[in-house]
Structure formats: structure tokens, C-alpha cells
């Protein structure tokens, strides 16, 4: 019908290699999220700190992360830092780039979530004799988490999709990189990338389903 013979068998034979790549992709996504969340919390604190320097750094980080392409951020980690004599491996460049991006977007989400919780909640906690830290920890943070949970899930999905950009800095162990290398060997471009697309789609669905389950368990109110 197409004058083109699909050759799926050849591609399925490579599936184990691609699944190994998917594991690396997941690893980078998870790492970049964990570090990204920690950094985002710091950036949020910096922005609330009242210190000009700290909030300036945090604001610059957030705005650059949100207003330039993720691929640009990965290039900066790889080629840009190279100008300072810091040479990162493709894996680390990709991780640094995605983490930078995650932290920026998450910090903005956290700030929005913080704003959404009325001052009266902290006041109510304080009036019961709680210290500022206790009120923050037991009253503000749990409510923030609920508001920020969906954006965090979306960011996790983005992190997975962004791993595909690693190939531009020479990454070849993640799902996209492995697929690219296999393509160079077999030239079954369409079949190979179709399978990669399905794997990516399934990873995203697993993340979204897991997030829904966690949210359902966690936020009963």
C-alpha cells in the first residue's frame, strides 16, 4: 500500500536495548526532579528572604529557566560551562540542564502555592501556641503540597520528555540516544522511533497514573 515494507521484527529484537535506555531516561528524570525540588525550595526561600542579593539570584534563575529553550539551557551546561574550563560529560550536562529547568518552574509553582494559602491559617496556628516554624511545617506546607502537586506531576512528565534533548550534546545511553544509535546501524528510522514513542507514551502514562493514585491517597479532603 505504501510501497514501503515495515520491518518490525528487526526492531523488536532491539527492544531490550531500548528498554535499558528507558531506564536511563527514568533515572535522569527522577534525579533531576529530586534535586530540582530541593533547589526550588531554596529558590522560594531566597525570594521570600528580603535580601536583595538572594532574591535577585533566585529571580534571575527562575526567569531564565522559564524564558529560554530547555535545549539552550542544556547547551549552556555543556558548551557554556566549557568556556570556564568546566567540562561536563553528556550525562551530567543533560542532568544539570534539566535540573536547572525543573528548579525554575517548580520555584514559580511553589511561590504561587504559598500565596494561595491565607495568612489567617498561620495566624490560627500561632494563636494555639505554635512557633512560626511549627505553623509553617504542620499547616502551610501540607496545604502547599496539594496545590503544587499537579504542576509537579506535569514537570516530571516534562523532565522525561526533555531527556530526549541529551542527544544534542552527545548522550547515547538514554532512550532517544539508544534509538538514534540503532538507527545508524539499521536505518529503520520510522519503526525504531515509533517504538521509542510508544515507550515514552507508556512512561508518561505510568507517571500520571501513579500521581493520581498518590494524590488520591494523600489528599482526602
Amino acid at each position: 500500500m505504501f510501497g514501503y515494507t515495515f520491518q518490525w521484527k528487526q526492531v523488536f529484537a532491539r527492544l531490550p536495548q531500548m528498554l535499558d535506555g528507558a531506564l536511563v531516561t527514568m533515572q535522569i528524570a527522577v534525579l533531576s526532579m529530586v534535586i530540582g525540588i530541593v533547589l526550588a525550595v531554596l529558590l522560594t526561600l531566597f525570594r521570600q528572604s528580603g535580601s536583595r542579593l538572594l532574591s535577585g539570584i533566585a529571580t534571575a534563575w527562575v526567569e531564565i529557566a522559564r524564558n529560554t529553550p530547555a535545549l539552550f539551557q542544556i547547551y549552556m551546561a555543556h558548551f557554556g560551562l566549557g568556556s570556564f574550563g568546566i567540562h561536563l560529560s553528556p550525562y551530567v550536562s543533560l542532568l544539570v540542564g534539566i535540573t536547572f529547568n525543573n528548579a525554575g518552574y517548580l520555584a514559580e509553582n511553589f511561590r504561587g502555592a504559598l500565596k494561595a494559602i491565607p495568612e489567617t491559617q498561620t495566624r490560627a496556628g500561632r494563636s494555639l501556641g505554635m512557633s512560626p516554624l511549627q505553623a509553617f511545617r504542620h499547616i502551610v506546607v501540607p496545604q502547599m503540597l496539594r496545590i503544587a502537586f499537579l504542576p509537579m506531576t506535569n514537570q516530571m512528565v516534562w523532565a522525561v520528555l526533555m531527556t530526549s534533548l541529551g542527544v544534542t550534546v552527545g548522550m547515547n545511553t538514554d532512550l532517544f540516544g539508544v534509538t538514534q544509535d540503532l538507527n545508524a546501524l539499521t536505518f529503520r528510522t520510522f519503526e525504531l522511533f515509533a517504538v521509542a514513542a510508544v515507550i515514552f507514551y507508556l512512561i508518561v502514562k505510568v507517571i500520571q497514573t501513579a500521581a493520581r493514585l498518590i494524590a488520591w491517597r494523600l489528599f482526602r479532603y
Partner: protein
Amino acid sequence: MFDTALTAADLLFLAKGAGVTILVTLISVALGTLLGIVFGVIRYQVGPWWAAPLTFVLDVFRSVPLLIQLVLANAFLGVVLKLRMSGFTVACGVLTMYTAAYCAEIVRGGIEAVPMNTRRAARSLGMTWRQDMTSIVMPLATRVALPSWIGLALGVMKDSALVYVVQVTELLKSTQILITRLQEPLFLLMICGAFYFLISFPLARLGGYLERRWTND
């Protein structure tokens, strides 16, 4: 740092790349938005059950890396269907669908945000479905949707950096070509980053401003 080998011709080369970035973005956002409005209205109108196939297809565009979408479209059109299409056309086509997929969600959300009572009031005055849609729903839904839509348009501009994979030399690719030749990565990347930032930052601010203003009403 300003001691650079960058020539006027190189700058022109970068400017051309920037032009391609803007052109691809404008075409894709314009077509994608039109398509997205159609999809969004359909999704809202026929209900979740009948819209399921459409919802699924649109979701795929949001769950597969754009880079893979571009490679697949290119391979399918070129190798499988043996069509001769320029990389530019493929890039615009894929980005249009990509935009439409996100835009449909925004449109549906906007329509759902219009209170049912307002619409009943319109219909009770004898307005037809079309009149209700154009003079009640559209203005109100636009208020909800516009800030997100600005975010989407800027997202598409940033994501258009990936169309290099179908041989379209946009801004970031131009920058990379110069980096390889001149070996001045930091300087060149800063020019490139500044370009994206100077377009994206003010528009993102505008979106944030509109969102705050309209939610306070």
C-alpha cells in the same frame, strides 16, 4: 570577552536564524490555535465519551517528545509515503499539531469556566447556539484562556529550537554552527539566549498581568 572573531556576516546569519524561529512560531501558533479552537469546541460539545478518540490523539502529542514527533513525521512522509516535502513544511506541520493539542485543552478549560447560568440566561433571551457561543461564551472564555494561550505561544517558540532535526536552521542551530566554527560558545550562546529572553520575558509578564487583573474582577 568582546574580543571576538564574530563578523557582520555571522551576525546576519544569526539574524536569519532568528527570522526562521519567528516565522515557524507564527505559522504554527496561528494554524495550531485555529485547529485547537475547533478541537476544543468539539471536545466540549460532544462530551467526554464521544470525544475519547480525539482526546487520545491529542494526548499523544503531549506525551511523546517533540523531537520524536519531528523525526517520525519526517520519516513517515519522506521514507514511507515518499513525499517530497521541505523540512520547513514538516516542522510547521508538526508544531501546528503540537500547538493544537495544548490549545484544545486551554479552549475547553475556558469554555468550562463560563458559568452555566450565564449561558442559560443568554439562551432564555432567545439567542441561538451560535449567538450564545460568539457573543457570550467567546468573550468570557477568552479572558480565562488568554494568559495560558500566551504561555503556550511562548512555549512553542522555545520548543521550535528542536526543528533543527528536520534540517531547518533556526536560531539555536545557527548559533551551534557558529560555535563549531568560531569556538566562542559562551559569547554566542549569550546572544542567542538574550534573543529568546527578550521576546519571551515581556510577553510572559503581560500574561501574568492579565491573569492577575482578570481574576481580581
